[in-house]
């Protein structure tokens, strides 16, 4: 959607303040209201209202699939009516009213059907039709507790009975307000694939008898990772997008950040929710600095830190403080993986220059992270941090302990890191072998080229060193 949104400057002139109530009359340029613009306004309303609408309907009909369909019906009604009537004063309430009426119709139809099936002969007078007033009563009784509905929506869309892919698609659809087309474009898959995933997800939830409920207490904490994982996956999908990609892909970072921020406000007592927000804000703060003009990636330590977004860093550090304030012994849990990764990212964010990086603290954080989520990849990162803090020999010692880890036998970064440390120790012949091994293991062309280059450089540098020695020997003789 909003293909014009890419260049707000170019298209700004045709935007319309659609039916703004009251005050926009005599100043600025009076603007017409073509249907196309109303469509954009409807999309915007949808993005704002979709989650709350589906969440509220979910509580009424107790079924996320049905709630989503009712909300879609209301959207269709808006697309039919608003271009002529203008966007109503309170578009959210309008959509909810339409969806509610449809829900009541459906329930009435179902009741009539059931009555015919099972209660033939029963006096129809005794059964009461559900009325709109009943629904209003249900809605009003918990008015202002939309947060609870949203929480139910989050945990139902990210229910563990669903595959990760299904959770991602359903979450972006019902919480992010993205269309199937947008999700498909962002994930580089056909639209039909996304539709199928969503349809299957709804069926799976119905078949498993998943209630439209949020877990409480310990169970909430236990199921939170399945939600956080979805949000971080969406973020990484956007973060891995490259310069030439459709702008929908990098936009996923903003969608994920928004979902994360919403989530953190829904479960403000959960450290990891704030940890994830902190991690994403800080990573996003580097997005302008992480690729060169040609789209080639720039490594963290070589990035121009002036291009890091200080506002996002500030937001990330604030979120990290919130995460850390919620953990710590003796009565609170230890920091979780997201908070720890955010703390590592924060060490880089706080350093004005690469030289100011607190590598000792980063090594310690990696040690805690490896303890929280045992993984040879984390250990490898720890080895790099240790080498920066305590020298290449200390790092190499850790890397060598990892060499036997079966998970890493085909992981190109192990020989790559080992090669790097060997270069620093002046052991260039061994380094060359490592870089060659890494080049053979990587699946990424650009990376392979870089690693081959480094292998060659090892040979050239050692040859170069010999040449210089020979040269200087000659100079010595002549001088």
């Amino acid at each position, binding site marked *: *959607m*909003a293909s014009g*949104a*890419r*260049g*707000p*400057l*170019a298209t*700004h002139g045709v*935007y319309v*303040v659609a039916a*703004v*109530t009251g*005050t926009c009359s005599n100043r600025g340029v009076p603007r017409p209201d073509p249907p196309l*613009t109303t469509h*954009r*306004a409807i*999309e*915007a*309303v949808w*993005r*704002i209202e979709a989650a709350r609408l589906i969440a509220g309907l979910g509580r009424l009909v107790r079924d996320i699939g049905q709630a989503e369909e009712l909300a879609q019906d209301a959207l269709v009604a808006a697309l039919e009516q608003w271009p002529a009537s203008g966007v109503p004063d309170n*578009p959210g309430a309008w959509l909810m009213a339409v969806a509610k009426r449809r829900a009541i119709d459906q329930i009435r139809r179902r009741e009539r059907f059931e009555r015919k099936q099972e209660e033939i002969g029963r006096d129809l007078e005794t059964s009461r039709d559900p009325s709109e007033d009943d629904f209003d009563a249900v809605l009003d009784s918990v008015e202002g507790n939309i*947060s609870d509905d949203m929480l139910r929506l989050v945990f139902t869309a990210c229910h563990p009975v669903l595959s990760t892919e299904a959770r991602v698609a359903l979450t972006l659809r019902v919480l992010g307000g993205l269309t199937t087309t947008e999700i498909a474009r962002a994930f580089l898959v056909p639209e039909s694939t996304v539709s199928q995933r969503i349809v299957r997800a709804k069926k799976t939830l119905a078949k498993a008898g998943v209630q439209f409920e949020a877990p409480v207490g310990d169970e909430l904490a236990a199921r939170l990772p399945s939600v956080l994982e979805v949000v971080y996956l969406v973020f990484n999908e956007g973060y891995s997008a490259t310069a030439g990609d459709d*702008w929908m892909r990098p*936009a996923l970072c*903003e*969608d994920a*950040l*928004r*979902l*994360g*921020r*919403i989530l953190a*406000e*829904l479960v403000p007592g959960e450290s990891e929710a704030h940890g994830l927000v902190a991690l994403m804000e800080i990573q996003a703060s580097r997005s*302008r600095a992480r690729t060169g*003009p*040609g789209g080639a990636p720039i490594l963290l330590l070589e990035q*121009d*830190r*002036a*291009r890091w977004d200080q*506002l996002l860093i500030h*937001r990330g550090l604030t979120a990290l403080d919130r995460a850390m304030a919620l953990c710590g012994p003796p009565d609170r849990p230890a920091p979780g993986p997201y908070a720890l990764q955010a703390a590592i990212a924060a060490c880089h964010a706080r350093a004005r220059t690469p030289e100011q990086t607190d590598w000792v603290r980063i090594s310690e954080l990696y040690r805690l992270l490896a303890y929280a989520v045992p993984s040879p990849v984390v250990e490898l990162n720890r080895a790099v941090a240790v080498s920066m803090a305590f020298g290449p020999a200390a790092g190499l010692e850790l890397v060598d302990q990892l060499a036997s880890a079966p998970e890493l036998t085909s992981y190109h970064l192990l020989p790559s890191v080992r090669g790097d440390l060997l270069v620093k120790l002046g052991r260039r012949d061994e380094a060359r072998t490592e870089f060659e091994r890494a080049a053979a293991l990587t699946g990424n062309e650009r990376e392979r080229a870089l690693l081959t280059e480094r292998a060659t450089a090892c040979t050239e540098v050692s040859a170069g060193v010999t040449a210089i020695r020979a040269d200087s020997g000659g100079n010595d003789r002549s001088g």
Partner: protein
Amino acid sequence: MRFIAMVKADERSEAGEMPTEAELAAMGAYNEELVKAGVMLAGEGLHPSSRGSRVVHTAEKTTVLDGPFTETKELIAGFWLLQAKSYEEALEWLKRAPRPETGEFVIELRPVFEAEDFGEAFTPELQEQEARIRAQAEQNA
């Protein structure tokens, strides 16, 4: 995409008058809504222009003019920095801001420049130059 929503000053804000309790409560609820929806990146209220200054640069000299400034309706009393998917979405959010008890409450919405906005004209060379300027600015700061 980012947007700045500038709250225009009025006689009351320029007089340094504080909002009523009801106005504060309504604004607080609105801010909370923006935060809970994950769209508000920052937002601040400003002191009246009587506590501000203008720094005017010309080719020849630099002059500092102290407030207050008279063109009340052109002045800013506060701002939000919003992150939204589209201009229309940011606009929809502003339409939900609380209405004042009396008078007018005017908010001006403007998209924030992003590198992509320059399109083809913003060549890699220019981007690099911009990066250098930013780096220089950072050093000077």
